[in-house]
Structures are given as C-alpha cells and as structure tokens.
C-alpha cells in the first residue's frame, strides 16, 4: 500500500499501476495509425505554394464539386434531422407490429457496405427500377442526378439523428406531452414547446454527424451520382480523379478543404454539446 502511494506525487492520482505501459502502447498506435498519415497530409500540403493550392481548389470543376458536396450533404442532413426526430419519436412513443424489427434495422446503413447501398439504390431509382418507375412519369429522375446524391446521403445518414435523439426521448416523461395536449396544444405546438427544447442538443449532434458523414461519403454516392463534370461530381470523387492522374498535390489541396470543413462541423458540435451540458448542470 505504502509502496504504490510513494510512487505518486499527488496522493491518489495514479494509484493504479501500469500507467507507463498503457500510455506507451496507446500513444504508439495512435501515432502509427492516425498521426503519421495526417502529418503526411499536412506536410504534402505545406509543400504546395499558396498559388498552387489556390489554383487546385478554385478550378471550375473542383468548385462545382464542392458546391454539389456541400449542398447535397446539407440537404440530406436536414431531411435526416426531420425524419430522424420523427422516427425516434415513433419508436419511443408508438406501438405497432414490427416495431422491434424496425428498431433493429435503423442501423442498417452502418452495417451495410456502402458500395452495396450504392448499387442497390441506383438500381432501384433508375427510370425502370422499382422506385424510379413511380417517379419517371412525373418527369423526376433520381439516379444519375443531384436528387440521387441526396437519396444516397439520406440513406447513410439515417442512424445518426435517430440514435442520438432516441435515448433522450426515452428519458423524457410522456406525461408532459400529454398535459400539453390536454391543455389544448395541438401536435405542432406540443412538439415545438415541449419536445423540441429537450431534444435539441441531441438532434443537432445527430445533424452534425450526418452532415460530416455526408460530406465525406464516397462509396454509396459514386454509383448513383452518374459523375457528370460540373453537375454531379462530389468532392471526394475529385480527389480520386486527381490521384488517377498522379496529381498528389491537387488531391491534397482538395482533401485539406474537406478536412477543414469537417473539423469545423466537429468544433461546432462540441460547442453545442458544451452549451447543453452547462444548461443542464447550471
């Protein structure tokens, strides 16, 4: 007892033995797998002159791929926010046959390889496909258009909002909703005044995660997008294109812009969570 106490300056700080080994193994692996590759990215980016960097990321085709990526990721994340909150609410508050199966299937987009999601959604939404043939007479094409990109991103993003909102709703007492309803609030007001303030931080976290995922998504989108220059090319595809022509500098520049965007989302999400934590603790 005295031995392990003596070895540590701050009393009770590191009573548990094995600190050196554990930290050593963890740091080594983090360095090998995460730090070195990201450092390589940074070093390669620094080798570009500002002019080269600017030229690589402001080419017309690259700019329009950024626009497509951001626009469709934001739209898909918004759809996921709405449908995710709704699905979470339905899963928590309603009973219907097949509910447990539906609950289990919510994470299908995590478990299903993205390439399979891509080829399946494409085949479903081409004009002759099961879903495409419903929309084709209305003049709406899904596969090989921007709509298709959004469809693929909605698919991969479904679990994020549902799974962050669901636990909060489970803890939220259903009687608040009931009393609001009894006091004459309609569905929309009950949602707006009673449910939304409680689930907002969780819903925004899910939204941010879906957005970040959508920005970087590749496997499911390349099949359904059709990849027409200036129209349906996404930014990760432009990185692929640069690599195929061995333009590592150009690829790194585009990657850097994408990374900056996802870190910004990460930062904003942390701020939202910190504010929510302050609110509940204070």
């Amino acid at each position: 007892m005295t031995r392990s106490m003596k070895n540590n300056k701050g009393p009770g700080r590191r009573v548990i033995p094995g600190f050196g080994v554990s930290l050593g193994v963890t740091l080594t692996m983090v360095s090998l797998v995460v730090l070195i590759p990201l450092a390589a990215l940074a070093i390669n980016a620094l080798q570009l002159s500002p002019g080269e960097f600017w030229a690589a990321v402001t080419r017309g085709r690259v700019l329009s791929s950024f626009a497509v990526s951001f626009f469709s990721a934001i739209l898909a994340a918004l759809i996921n926010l709405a449908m995710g909150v709704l699905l979470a609410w339905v899963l928590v508050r309603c009973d219907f046959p097949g509910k447990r199966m539906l609950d289990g299937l919510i994470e299908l987009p995590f478990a299903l390889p993205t390439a399979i999601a891509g080829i399946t959604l494409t085949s479903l939404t081409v004009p002759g496909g099961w879903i495409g043939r419903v929309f084709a007479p209305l003049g709406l094409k899904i596969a090989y258009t921007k709509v298709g990109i959004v469809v693929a991103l909605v698919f991969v993003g479904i679990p994020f909002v549902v799974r962050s909102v669901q636990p909060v709703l489970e803890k939220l007492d259903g009687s608040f909703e009931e009393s609001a309803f009894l006091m004459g609030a309609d569905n929309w007001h009950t949602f707006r005044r009673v449910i939304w303030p409680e689930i907002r931080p969780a819903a925004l976290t899910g939204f941010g995660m879906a957005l970040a995922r959508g920005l970087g998504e590749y496997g499911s989108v390349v099949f359904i997008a059709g990849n027409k220059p200036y129209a349906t090319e996404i930014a990760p595809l432009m990185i692929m294109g640069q690599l195929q022509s061995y333009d590592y500098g150009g690829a790194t520049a585009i990657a850097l812009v994408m990374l900056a965007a996802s870190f910004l989302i990460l930062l904003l999400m942390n701020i939202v969570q910190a504010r929510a934590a302050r609110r509940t603790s204070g």
Partner: protein
Amino acid sequence: MKKTQTKRFPLPVILAIFFAACFLVLPLIFVIVQALSQGIGAYLANITEEYTQKAMLLTLKTTVVVVLVNTVFGLFAAWTVTKYSFPGRKALTTLIDLPLSVSPVISGLAFLLVFGRTSPLYGLLEGIGLKVVYAVPGIVLATLFVTFPYISREMIPVLSAQGRDEEEAAALMGAGWFTIFWRVTFPHIKWSLLYGVVLCTARAMGEFGAVSILSGHLRGKTNTLPLHIEILYNEFRYSEAFAVSSILVILALLVLVLRSLIEHRGRKGEA
C-alpha cells in the same frame, strides 16, 4: 395523447414508417430478388466463382487482422484515458476519434502519401521487398484507420461511468495491473467490448473508399468483396454483383441481430 396517437396512426407516424420501409426494407428485398433472379443454381455458381472466393478470403483476412489489432488498441486506449489522469488526456481522446470525421477517400490519400512513390519511405520499403501501396498491407492499414475508434469508443463511456474506486482499492491491496484489469475492469466492459467488435467487423468488411485507393484492383490478388462487387457492377454483370452483395447483406443482418442481442444482454448485465 399517447393512446390516441397509437390507435389512429396519424400522418406523421405513417410517413415515418413509409420512409423507413422505402430506405431500409426495400433495398434488402431488392438485393435478394436480384441475386436469385437467374435461379438458385446460378446464384450458387456466382458466389462460388473463383475470383469471388478469393475476394472473400481477402476480406476475411483483412477483417480478422483489423479487428484483432483494434481490440488490443481499444482495450489499452479505453483503459488509459479513463483510469489515469495526465495532461493531454482530452487531446488524446479527440485524436483517437479523429478517423470518424475524416472521409475514407482522404484516409486512403493519407496512406498513399506515407507509403506511395512520392514518399521517402517508398525506396526504403522497396529495398526490403515490402509493398504497401496497391497491395494487401495498404488495404489492411486503410481499413485499420477507418475503424480505429470503433472499439475504444464503446468502452470509454462505460469505464468513465464506472469510475476508478474499484481499481484503486485493488491496487492498494497490492494487485498488479493485469490482475486489476482482468478481475476488476474486464467484467464491466465485456458487453461493450463485444459490441465494439461487432461494429468494427461490420465496417471493416465493407470499407470501400479508402481501400479503393490503396488496392491495386488486381482480381484475385488485391480485390476485396466490395471492390469485386464494383467491378462486376461496372461490367453490367448485375445478377453476379447482387449475388456477391447478398453475402455481405446477410452478414450485415447478422451484425444487426447480434447488436440488438448484445445490447439486450448488456442492459440486463448492468442492471
């Protein structure tokens, strides 16, 4: 309100269920229908075809290696960041979770820059006859990066909620770190570890973007199952593509079933 909502199934509820059916159920049915479109004999021939078998083997090998490495790392990482206080602990946690916010394509690119032709390491590795890029080690590394936080992040919340009292008591009674880990900590995290392993397996077997950059796309050599599916699809061999897909679809469903079983058991274990 709850009762009436349940009985009448208002529009939002129907909308939610319809949305889920379109996005989550229809694709599964479609894959199975397409896979079996030429009959069961053709299906069996498609999934036992030579290149499919080789791709399956490569995916299996990659997944096993990645899950083993990430399990070891996950245990060390989760234990380190929850059982000790040290400066930079939060930064370390952020760093571990970083791969989650990096696009798979960018991860692939990063490894290409570390080991590819432009890197000083390339000559060095060439000298000892080790090929990383456009070869199996590259595929494994890319998959490792993409799934890196999957196991640790399932255990970290459980371990921080559990606190350090039990471990400190064991340490004060003279137990070594392995005894403490195995006898005191492990029983708390076995379900979340298993949960993480299942999620990691699912992601590892399906990774596409990162692997696509680092694989040489050589049939029978560096083609994983998802890459093999891409090739079949692009060659308009749809029923073969969906037949091979059905293997991964079945595995994905298995993952979901395991996931909900573990969650159920885990909840009971904690209670």
